[in-house]
C-alpha cells in the first residue's frame, strides 16, 4: 500500500472509523434509528432530522478495501444471482444476506430503521427490496423522473442558473418527493426539519465545496502534482457523507491548507513526473495501489478523478430562497452529470483540459450497466481533444474479476506507446 503523504488523509480515515463506531453504539446501546441510503440521496435531510445515514457506496468501498468482497460476492453468485449484475450497489446487500460468508468490517452494519434509495438505475428497486427484506426493515423509495433536455456546459449553470438545468415538471416533482421524504424522516426521528436550518446547511455545503474548488484549482494549476488522486478521494469522500457539518468544513480546510503548503514547498507526488493521468469512473476500491503504480516506473501520476471535481461543480447552489428547490435541482441531476451524453463527455474533456491531462484511463464497469453506458462518447470526446485513452474493464468492488499484473502491464504498454513516446 502506498504511503500517505497527507496528514489529513489519516485524519479522514480515523474519523470514518470513529463515526461508524459511534453509529453502532447509538444503534445498539441507545436504540436510536439510522438510515442506510444510496450516495445520491440528500444526506442533509437525514442529518437535520437527527437520523445518521450510511452510504451504500461508502460501505461497499470499505468492504472491498478490506478485501472481503470476493467472499460475499461468491455467496451471492452461489445463491443464483447472475454474475453480470451490479456488484457495487449490491455488495452491501451481500454482507447482510450472507453474513457468514465473510468478515464484514468494523462489526458489520446494524439493522437500519430505514433504507432509502432514489430509483435511478433499474436495479436499485430490486437490490434495496431484497436488502430491506434481509434486514426486516422499511424501504423508502424516491422516484427519479428522467431528463429529456440536457443543456450544454452544465457546470456553468449549476451555481446561479440551476433552474435552467432541469425541466420545470421534473424540478417540481423532485421537490415534492423531498417534501414526502421529510415527512417520513420526521415521523421516524425526534426532530422536525427546520427550513431555516436547511438553508443554512446548504450554505455550509457551498462553503465546503468552495474550499474543494480552491483545492482543485491548486492541483490543476500546479506545475507538478502535489497530491495523489487516492488521497484526494479519501479526503473528499469522508466529508461528503457529513457535508456541511463543522467537522466536514474544518476537514476540507485542513486538506486545502496542507495541499497549499505542499504546493508552495514544491513538494510533489512523484520526483520524475512526465505524464498527468485522469481516471474516468468510480474508484477501483479493491486495488487502490493501482493508482500509484506508475509513478516510479514511468513518471505517470493520476491527477484527476471525478471525486474532487464533482463536488464544486455539482453541489454548489447560490440563491437559496427556496432551499428545497435548490436541493431538488442537485438531486435530480446527479446521474446525468456523470454518466449521460452529452453531459458526462463534455465535462470530462473540460476537466482534462483544465488539468493539463496527458492521457485518460476510462473504466468500463461491465456489471454496473448504466454507469458503463456513455463510455464510448467520453472516449471519443477525449481522443478528439487530443487525449489518448486506455479502456479499462473492471469491477470496482469485485477483485475476482481483476488481474492486477495484467492491468499494470497494459497500462505500461499504453504509456510507452501512446503517451511517453
Amino acid at each position, binding site marked *: 500500500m502506498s504511503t500517505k503523504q497527507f496528514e489529513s488523509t489519516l485524519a479522514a480515515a480515523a474519523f470514518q472509523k470513529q463515526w461508524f463506531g459511534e453509529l453502532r453504539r447509538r444503534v445498539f446501546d441507545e436504540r436510536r434509528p439510522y438510515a442506510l441510503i444510496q450516495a445520491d440521496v440528500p444526506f442533509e435531510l437525514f442529518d437535520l432530522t437527527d437520523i445518521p445515514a450510511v452510504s451504500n457506496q461508502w460501505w461497499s468501498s470499505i468492504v472491498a478495501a478490506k478485501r472481503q468482497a470476493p467472499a460475499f460476492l461468491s455467496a451471492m453468485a452461489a445463491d443464483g*444471482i447472475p454474475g*453480470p*449484475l451490479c456488484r457495487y450497489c449490491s455488495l452491501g446487500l451481500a454482507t447482510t444476506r450472507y453474513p457468514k460468508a465473510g468478515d464484514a468490517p468494523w462489526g458489520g452494519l446494524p439493522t437500519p430503521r430505514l433504507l432509502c434509495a432514489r430509483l435511478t438505475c*433499474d436495479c436499485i428497486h430490486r437490490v434495496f427490496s431484497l436488502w430491506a427484506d434481509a434486514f426486516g426493515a422499511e424501504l423508502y423509495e424516491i422516484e427519479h423522473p428522467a431528463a429529456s433536455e*440536457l443543456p450544454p456546459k452544465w457546470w456553468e449553470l449549476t451555481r446561479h442558473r440551476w433552474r435552467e438545468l432541469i425541466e420545470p415538471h421534473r424540478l417540481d416533482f423532485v421537490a415534492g418527493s423531498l417534501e414526502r421524504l421529510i415527512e417520513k424522516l420526521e415521523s421516524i426521528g425526534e426532530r422536525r426539519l427546520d427550513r431555516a436550518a436547511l438553508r443554512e446547511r446548504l450554505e455550509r455545503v457551498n462553503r465546503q465545496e468552495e474550499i474543494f474548488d480552491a483545492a482543485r484549482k491548486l492541483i490543476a494549476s500546479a506545475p507538478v502534482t502535489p497530491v495523489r488522486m487516492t488521497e484526494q478521494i479519501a479526503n473528499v469522500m469522508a466529508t461528503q457523507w457529513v457535508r456541511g457539518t463543522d467537522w466536514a468544513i474544518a476537514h476540507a480546510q485542513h486538506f486545502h491548507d496542507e495541499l497549499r503548503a505542499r504546493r508552495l514547498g514544491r513538494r510533489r507526488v512523484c520526483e520524475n513526473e512526465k505524464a498527468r493521468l485522469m481516471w474516468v469512473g468510480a474508484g477501483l476500491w479493491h486495488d487502490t495501489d493501482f493508482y500509484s503504480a506508475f509513478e516510479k516506473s514511468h513518471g505517470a501520476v493520476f491527477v484527476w478523478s471525478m471525486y474532487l471535481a464533482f463536488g464544486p461543480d455539482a453541489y454548489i447552489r447560490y440563491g437559496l430562497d427556496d432551499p428545497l428547490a435548490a436541493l431538488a435541482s442537485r438531486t435530480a441531476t446527479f446521474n446525468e452529470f456523470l454518466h449521460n*451524453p452529452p453531459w458526462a463527455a463534455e465535462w470530462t474533456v473540460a476537466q482534462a483540459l483544465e488539468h493539463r491531462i496527458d492521457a485518460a484511463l476510462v473504466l468500463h464497469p461491465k456489471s454496473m450497466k*448504466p454507469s458503463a453506458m456513455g463510455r464510448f462518447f467520453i472516449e471519443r470526446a477525449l481522443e478528439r481533444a487530443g487525449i489518448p485513452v486506455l479502456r479499462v474493464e473492471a469491477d470496482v468492488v469485485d477483485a475476482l474479476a481483476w488481474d492486477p499484473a495484467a492491468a499494470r502491464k497494459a497500462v505500461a504498454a499504453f504509456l510507452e506507446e501512446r503517451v511517453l513516446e
Partner: protein
Amino acid sequence: MSLGAIDELRAGFEQPFWALGRDVASDGRTVVVSWPSVPVELVRAAGLAPIFARGRNAPTPTAHGVLEPDLFPNRLRQLVDAGLTGRLAGVAAVVLPRSSDPDYKCFLYLRELARLGTAAELPPVLLFDLLHADSPDARAYNADRARSLYADLASLAGQPRGDDELRGAVASANRARTAARRVQALRAGAPRLSGVDALPSLGAFLQLEPERYAALADAAADSLAHRAPLEAPRVLVAGEPVDGAALHAAIEAEGAVVVAELSPFGACGTETDIDSSGDPFAALAAHYERVIDARLPVGALMQRLDAALVSADAVVISLPPDDASFGWDYPRYRELLARHAVPHAVVHGDPAGSLTPSDRGRIQSLLDDARARREAARVY
C-alpha cells in the same frame, strides 16, 4: 381461415420494423417505438401508426460502433442500427419510453448522435417517462407526460387532435384487446396453439389497425377453438421479457408448448381494458405504468408470475447478458416456483438469437423433469 388469419397476424407482427426505409410515403405516418410502455392509443389518435423495434438474429455492425457491448438488448441494437443507416429517415418520430436503463440511454444516445452529426437522418426522438410510484404526485406526473406526448405527436402529424379522438382510439384498442384475450384463452389449460403462433398473434395487437386486428384474432380464435389440444409439457417464459418468438421456437423444438410469457408482446399485453370515461390521459398512464418492463415493481411482477403459473408445467427464465434487473428477482422466482412445485431452468443466451448448447441442455433437462412429473401425476 385460422392459418390464414394467423399468417396475417404474424406478418403484422414480424414485418413492419424490417420494412421501414422501403416506402417513404408510408413511413411518414409511422412512429417507431422501442417498448410497449408507450400507449399505442396516443400514437393512433394523433393520426400515426406505431411500429415496434424488434430483436432478431442479425448483425448490427453500425450500431456496434456506438453501443457498448453486453449493455443493450438486441432490439435496441437493431433500432440504433436502423437509425444510423438511414432506415428511420422517413418516419415521423422515434419514441423511447423510460422502461429500462437501456431504453432511456438509447434515447440520449440517439439525441447525441444527431447533435454530433453522426446520425444526420434521424427523425425527432422523443422520451416518454412513466413513474411507478403509487402516489398522487406520480399519477399526476404520468398523466402530464401522456398529455405532452400526445401534443408532440399531434404536432408532428400536423393535425390538431382532442380528447374525443383519444377516447375513440381507446375504444378501438379495447375491442382489439377483447379479441386478443380470446386467443390467449386458447393457451390456458389444454393449449390449442403453439407459442410460436400465439406470440405473434398477440403481439400484432400493437401494430395492426385495431379493427383489422380484432377481425383476424376473432377468426383465428373461432377456428382454433376446434383444434385438438397440444399434448406436451406446458412452459411459461419469464425473466427479461421477450419481444419475439425465437426463444419459444427453440423451446418448442425440444417438444414443449409455450403457453404464456411475462411479456407485453404476448400474454400480458392485452389482459385488461382501459376505462377512458374520466381523464383519458390519466387512464392511459395508469394502464401503461403496469406494463411489464425493467422498472415494474417486483411485487407486481411476482403477482403476474403467480397468476401465470396456473397453466405451466415448467418455467424458462431468460436472463441474457444485457439484463440488469430481472436477475435480481431470481431468489423470489425460485421461492415461488418451489412453493408451486414447478421446475425451472435459467437460460443466458440472447432470446432473439439461437440457443447456446448449454441453454439447450438446461431446457432439455427441464422438459425431462416436467414430463416425468406429468407422467407421475397421471399415474397417481
